[in-house]
């Protein structure tokens, strides 16, 4: 099969093809007044057809997608010269310039796209609740594709998200552009979705990362602009949507084993065990089609000795997805995930002289529980213009803690959503939806409570030439323990201007909100010398988000296979911001502090060069997170925020080997709530974070080998006071595809 490469003179090629058809006088000739461009898009290396490639005529709203074999056709084009852009997840985008179209003569093309690890999904679904070209999104959206996820062979998705621009985590709490900080696990301003369904715990809004089947993730979309207008409470700081894969066309069985070993601490005095700690992770997955339907099932067993004394964990996870295609108009999916886990439990180290050891009297503290998620999706294509989508979800979580401080919790969450979208002539799309959520919790530290919410949302999006205008709003009402808690209305307005296929500007503003969680309102607990007391008088916090940004995207130029630059300036102003505040009696209440503001600049760069030999991805975020008084004057820096955040990764792909080097820098946390630095003794010292990781992987037939070292230089730091972060670990992963 002959594949035209980008290095061939493209205008000449198109003319030659047209001339060829003219010369041989094929019967495919169209009537004199009709013209078309047809062709096939293939993988440049294997030559196999690529389905679902997004093909767009430059400076025009017209476009199409390739069929299952990679073929495409564009009809009714006036004679002239056209530029066509081709984009697909995992492949470098490509522009075919000067495609000559002559009246009555079909023009045929054959395009070879090159695989590229950095090529993120070009079509995203989270920012507008519908499929949208990422270059046309009026919001800050980034996406991580399956190749990038597979290249790290992570067990926990947090290890992927921590290397994304503007995303950080403290003790598993997601933090997008500094909005969440650390709230002791009792409330988050970043919403996690799995296949579009909220996955936050019903009492504390926490995330159980062990329930995300990382090896079955198709892509991750991160919306960094406030998302309350579409997703409600907890989305005011952004949304992470983890989209699980569907079964591939051919049956596939995969066995994967990962063995990891922790280093002993670099500092001899900190050594706390004679034998090294190990990590074992084994996964078995099978996927296949049943006629029109498809399914995958995955079983994971994990044992982690932990990098510190009470950091051990044992888990058994079973997850599966069934996709049912019920004719042309109906489709459904069911996702099930069940996790049984047992882990050590500690909230603090023994001392700064023994940071990897647990405090006296807590060595037997552990927690044991089960968690189950059942999600259902049903899509109905009512007509060409109207699609109805419904989602239902149930989440059940039970755990008991034993040891010095016995504890228990039982929680449940039920979620229902119906969404209808309609497209009118003139590129106008409307989306309307209703959601209902019921939460229940019975826990030792919260008591027994229930909450529920009802929301309606509406979004209109209109494409006018190079502009995409989006406006939407959400109305939501909350009840806690049968009493009205709040009613909130959140509008948003956004505009994208794409003057060229390689450049897009975006500007957006919107209101966000977050209703206090049950944990923030009712926690009653003691931690060290501090006591946490309930504050049922908390009110919802609100925000106004503003952002302006630009994206430059270029593919397949002389040396560069892919170039992407995304710059954003954002300003988030919060009212009644909820933070844990210790008072002069060392009693911590979650309180509505008067105001807060986060001003920031974010810049992300992705480069792939020399025929995919080298790729480089880097992003930095600069934040100014401050607490304000009623007059708008700065009172203090918001606690648990890093002012500077810089992530970089370099990949080299040669001789079938993939080598990678990653670096993560976060500036020293300037303000904390519990233990302040002692200037005389340096006790509770806070330091900046400099962490380096490296990996070497290779695919050999059905085998995949991956060796990784994380925290190469054994850099020791804390984010949360008196909690040391991860020790160096070497992991080796082998995967065999049957």
């Amino acid at each position, binding site marked *: 099969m002959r594949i035209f490469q980008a290095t061939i003179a493209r205008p000449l090629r198109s003319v030659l093809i047209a001339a060829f058809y003219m010369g041989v006088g094929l019967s495919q000739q169209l009537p004199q007044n009709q013209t078309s461009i047809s062709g096939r898009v293939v993988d440049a290396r294997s030559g196999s057809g690529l389905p679902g490639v997004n093909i767009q005529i430059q400076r025009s709203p017209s476009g199409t997608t390739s069929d299952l074999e990679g073929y495409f056709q564009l009809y009714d084009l006036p004679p002239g010269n056209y530029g066509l852009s081709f984009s697909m997840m995992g492949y470098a985008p490509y522009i075919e310039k000067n495609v000559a179209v002559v009246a009555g003569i079909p023009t045929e093309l054959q395009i070879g796209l090159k695989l590229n690890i950095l090529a993120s999904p070009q079509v995203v679904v989270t920012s507008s609740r519908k499929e949208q070209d990422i270059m046309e999104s009026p919001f800050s959206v980034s996406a991580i594709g399956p190749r990038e996820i597979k290249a790290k062979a992570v067990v926990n998705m947090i290890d992927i998200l921590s290397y994304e621009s503007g995303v950080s985590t403290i003790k598993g709490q997601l933090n997008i552009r500094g909005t969440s900080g650390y709230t002791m696990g009792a409330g988050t301003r970043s919403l996690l979705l799995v296949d579009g369904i909220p996955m936050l715990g019903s009492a504390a809004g926490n995330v159980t990362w062990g329930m995300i089947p990382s090896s079955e993730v198709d892509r991750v979309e991160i919306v960094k602009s406030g998302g309350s207008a579409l997703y409600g409470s907890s989305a005011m700081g952004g949304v992470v949507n983890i989209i699980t894969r569907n079964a591939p066309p051919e049956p596939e069985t995969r066995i994967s084993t990962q063995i990891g070993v922790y280093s002993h601490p670099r500092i001899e005095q900190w050594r706390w065990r004679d034998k090294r700690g190990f990590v074992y992770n084994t996964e078995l997955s099978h996927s296949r089609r049943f006629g029109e339907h498809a399914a995958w099932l995955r079983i994971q067993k994990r044992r982690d000795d932990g990098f510190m004394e009470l950091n051990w964990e044992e888990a058994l996870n079973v997850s599966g997805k069934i996709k049912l295609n019920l004719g042309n108009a109906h489709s459904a999916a069911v996702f099930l995930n069940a996790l049984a886990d047992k882990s050590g439990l500690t909230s603090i180290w023994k001392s700064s*002289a023994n940071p990897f050891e647990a405090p006296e009297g807590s060595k037997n503290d552990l927690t044991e529980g089960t968690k189950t998620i059942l999600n259902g999706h049903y899509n109905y294509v009512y007509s060409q213009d109207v699609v109805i989508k419904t989602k239902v979800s149930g989440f059940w979580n039970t755990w008991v803690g034993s040891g010095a401080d016995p504890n228990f919790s039982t929680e449940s969450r039920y979620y229902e959503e119906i969404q209808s979208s309609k497209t009118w002539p003139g590129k106008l799309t409307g989306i309307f939806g209703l959601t209902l959520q019921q939460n229940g919790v019975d826990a030792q530290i919260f008591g027994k409570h229930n909450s529920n919410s009802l929301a309606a949302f509406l979004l209109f999006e209109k494409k006018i030439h190079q502009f995409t205008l989006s406006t939407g709003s959400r109305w939501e009402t909350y009840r806690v323990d049968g009493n009205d808690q709040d009613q909130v209305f959140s509008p948003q307005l956004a505009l994208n201007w794409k003057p060229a296929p390689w450049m897009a500007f975006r500007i957006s503003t919107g209101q966000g909100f977050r209703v206090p969680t049950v944990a923030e309102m009712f926690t009653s607990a003691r931690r060290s010398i*501090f006591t946490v007391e309930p504050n049922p008088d908390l009110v919802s916090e609100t925000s106004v988000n503003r952002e302006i940004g630009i994206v430059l995207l270029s593919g397949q130029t002389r040396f560069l296979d892919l170039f992407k630059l995304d710059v954003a300036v954002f300003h988030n102003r919060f009212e009644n911001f909820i933070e844990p505040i210790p008072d002069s009696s060392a009693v911590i209440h979650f309180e509505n502090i008067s105001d807060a503001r986060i001003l920031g600049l974010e810049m992300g760069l992705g480069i792939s060069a020399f025929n995919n030999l080298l790729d480089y991805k880097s992003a930095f975020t600069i934040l100014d997170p401050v607490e304000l008084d009623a007059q708008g004057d700065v009172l203090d820096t918001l606690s648990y925020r890093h002012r500077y955040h*810089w992530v970089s990764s370099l990949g080299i792909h040669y001789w079938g080997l993939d080598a990678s080097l990653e670096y993560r820098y976060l500036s020293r946390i300037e303000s904390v709530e519990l233990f302040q630095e*002692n200037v005389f003794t340096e*006790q509770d010292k806070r330091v900046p974070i*400099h962490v380096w990781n490296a990996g070497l992987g290779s695919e050999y037939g059905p085998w995949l080998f991956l060796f990784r070292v994380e925290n190469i230089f054994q850099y020791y730091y804390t984010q949360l006071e008196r909690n040391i972060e991860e020790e160096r670990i070497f992991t080796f992963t082998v995967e065999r595809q049957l």
Partner: protein
Amino acid sequence: MKSRLPVITGLSVWLILSLGLIFRCDSPGDLEAVSGIQGRIQINGVMPDSIKAVALVVLLPEAINDQEHIGAYLINYSEPLYRSGAYYTQLKPGQYMGIIVGLLVDPGIFAANIDSYLESPELPLVQLTEGVHAFLIRENEMQEIDWDIDF
């Protein structure tokens, strides 16, 4: 030319901002081995209600000549104990004095208001050991000292 424009523009902006950030980056300086004092405080008998908790207080040696302003010489104190248990406090190398004290206020209140307590002439502490224990801390040294308190 069009395809080069975003690359050149983007790389230039990137370079300028990256250089700025590199210069701003804090130099690496992670947590290191520390020195200090640790051990056990054994509480014998019944602690009176007026004493809320027990802790080790570490003072500079100069405190012995200026007992009116003892707060000015307080360097660190261990996490207060409600019953017998292990204590620990981090110290830089140097000469110190240690005494076991009873806290007359809730340990949380003491921690939250430490600055104002240190400035006041009367600290809400009562000495539980006779005299003071002088000790020398060397680089990366953790001294082990056990204490017995009788009520």
